[in-house]
């Protein structure tokens, strides 16, 4: 090789090296929250206040991230997860989210909890083109309004989708149903109500009474008594955990034996056990789930992993609290999305991964798939019904798919 050719070769190699280095640098300089060794995400959650019982979720998510970090992270990057307490007050959510984006320079807003808090930050995040992902709320907006807010995507099955399943079930399997509904008198309750009516179809005429309560009321006994008096033999309880437990106790107390449908959010085994200890007869109650059944199948790989992660990284956590399993399932999804975002993730590649899901999440019920397209953004839209018997939920029947 001549000296000239050697020089040219060296220069070429240097040029390529320089380009590669500056590309890597430029990528991380352009993408907030991503460095060579770390990736920072953040979210807002109610750690104090009346919704604080959901505050276990970010801790479970943090535990999963610690586990992933212990195995080297994602493409060599450790996940840094910052979560702040907004107390379920949107006036706190907004400044805290601005802090996450503009001061903590997070790569994405992950898992933030609550419909109103997320509605408050959605505009800001989309305007700033910050991924607003896997939001912890069952509203449908995160999918139905994707055209206007393309940087936003949800995670769990939406509430109307869930109650549609109940409606379809009652319509097909409970022909003599006379349906009573207890619902929270706001958008939360209305979401479930609408889905139920849709699922019932022509059977909607079998609804004999609808009773409402306000979130500030803790005693729903008069509503339950009225539902019984209306002659219902099926009752759908679309309420928050506290009122659900109270309703179940009152049902037993007044000697009523309807088939009760309970929304997934309030059906955690923990709440059912509390209801039972307070005197409720909860055998036979029906709900729906999409999560792995770690209680009846404690020996599956997923169940063992779940419990060991909690034990090691979130020691106070109760594995029977389904919110913890929710958190781990959600965290798995985030990690998978990061893996699929390429060696050096950008916000666009990240959103692309999330809107092209075709995954089997081990923490979901076996057989369920996480599927999305850019136009169809419900990651989980399959559920299975479960019935409570002898102290645990038992899934039954087939998986309801595309329940919309």
């Amino acid at each position, binding site marked *: 090789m001549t000296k000239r050719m050697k020089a040219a070769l060296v220069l070429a190699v240097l040029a390529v090296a320089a380009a590669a280095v500056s590309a890597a640098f430029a990528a991380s300089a352009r993408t907030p929250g991503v460095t060579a060794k770390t990736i920072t995400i953040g979210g807002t959650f109610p750690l104090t206040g009346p919704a604080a019982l959901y505050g276990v979720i970010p801790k479970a998510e943090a535990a999963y991230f610690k586990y992933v970090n212990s195995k080297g992270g994602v493409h060599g990057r450790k996940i840094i997860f910052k979560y702040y307490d907004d107390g379920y007050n*949107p006036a706190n959510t907004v400044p805290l989210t601005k802090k996450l984006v503009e001061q903590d320079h997070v790569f994405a807003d992950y898992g933030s909890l609550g419909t109103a808090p997320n509605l408050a930050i959605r505009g800001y995040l989309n305007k700033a083109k910050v991924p607003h992902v896997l939001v912890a709320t069952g509203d449908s907006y995160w999918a139905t309004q994707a055209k206007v807010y393309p940087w936003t995507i949800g995670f769990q099955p939406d509430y109307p989708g869930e109650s549609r399943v109940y409606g379809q079930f009652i319509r097909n399997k409970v022909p003599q149903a006379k349906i009573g509904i207890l619902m929270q008198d706001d958008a939360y309750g209305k979401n479930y109500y609408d889905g139920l009516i849709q699922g019932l179809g022509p059977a909607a005429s079998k609804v004999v009474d609808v009773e409402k309560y306000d979130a500030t009321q803790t005693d729903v006994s008069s509503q339950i008594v009225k539902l019984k008096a209306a002659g219902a033999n099926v009752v759908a309880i679309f309420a928050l955990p506290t009122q659900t437990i109270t309703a179940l106790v009152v049902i037993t107390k007044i000697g009523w034996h309807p088939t009760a449908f309970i929304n997934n959010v309030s059906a955690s085994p923990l709440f059912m056990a509390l209801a039972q200890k307070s005197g409720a007869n909860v055998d036979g109650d029906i709900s729906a789930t999409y999560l792995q059944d770690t209680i009846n199948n404690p020996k599956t790989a997923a169940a063992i992993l779940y419990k060991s992660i909690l034990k090691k990284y979130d020691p106070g956590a109760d594995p029977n609290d389904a919110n913890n399993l929710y958190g781990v399932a959600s965290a798995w999804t985030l990690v998978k999305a990061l893996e699929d975002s390429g060696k050096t993730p950008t916000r666009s590649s990240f959103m692309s991964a999330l809107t092209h899901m075709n995954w089997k999440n081990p923490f979901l019920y076996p057989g369920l798939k996480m599927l999305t397209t850019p136009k169809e953004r419900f990651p989980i839209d399959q559920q299975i019904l479960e019935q409570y018997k002898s102290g645990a939920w038992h899934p039954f029947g087939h998986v309801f798919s595309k329940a919309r």
Partner: protein
Amino acid sequence: MRPKPATLAGLVVTLAVAAAIALIPFALSNYHRSTGADVAVFFVAILALNIVTGYTGQISIGHGAFMAIGGYATAILTHDHGWNDIATLPIAAICGFIAGVIVGVPALRFQGVYLALTTFAVALAVPQLAKNYSHLTGGTEGLALPTHTGMWLYGVGWAVAAVMFAIAWLLLRGRTGRAFRAVRDSEIAAASSGVTLAVYKTVSFGISAGMAAVAGSVYVLVNNFVNPDVFGLTLSLYILIGAVVGGLGSLWGVLAGACFIQLLPIALTTGSVGSSQSVPVVFGAVVIGVMALLPLGAANLLRVALHFGSQWRQHSDTPLGTEGR
């Protein structure tokens, strides 16, 4: 205590502080400008509370409700009727004033803790009303408004604060202010020297509520969102904390109080490791500590340090009600 313009020092300090507030945003990031706008909101809210509690001696733990009225007025007019943001502020003030008078009238009958309960009830009732009339207010899902840059928010917030401060200052140095203070110090003496108690007490509530409503409007603009949870009881309690920590009966303490309740929690959130579970513990402890060390608030510290204003009441008398003992 009112700043005496006769004192050159007072004027100079006022101008210096105003200049600082006007110039700081240029050195701040967008995020910190938004934070500054939040401080302005609470500046106005605490100023409002000071008028009715510090100067007229009527305790209120319900000012969050008046903020709600202003906030919702702005949100509804902007969201549903396409009004310009700033144009809604005077409307909010008027709505707040009316609400304040409505609360002020039954409040005439009550003193001290009983009045506190009345305002407490108002603070709880207003968010419930917002939930009830959800076709108007958006209910629990609220109303989302367009976002603004930090600079815009800061500018609007502090411009409003300056206007409110000027109004308060003019009001309190004149006859109305003297009447308010007379009502606070001794109702019986005030009445016997010709102050129509009912009128002045109600007016003080009205003005205070009107100001708080404007604060609520700006609050909604800063957060580009409104729903009943934004105006819960916690908000009213924080405004009261800010007013007392700043120093009741002082216009200067208002700035200190607003900074305290806005900046301290944020600083604590930044400092906390991992999660923000420890923030309320530290904040609560600091509030207790401040009450133990500076019972008359930051304004008293300023007074002692700068020899401001001899009208400032030295003595730890209750400014609430006048039950003689």
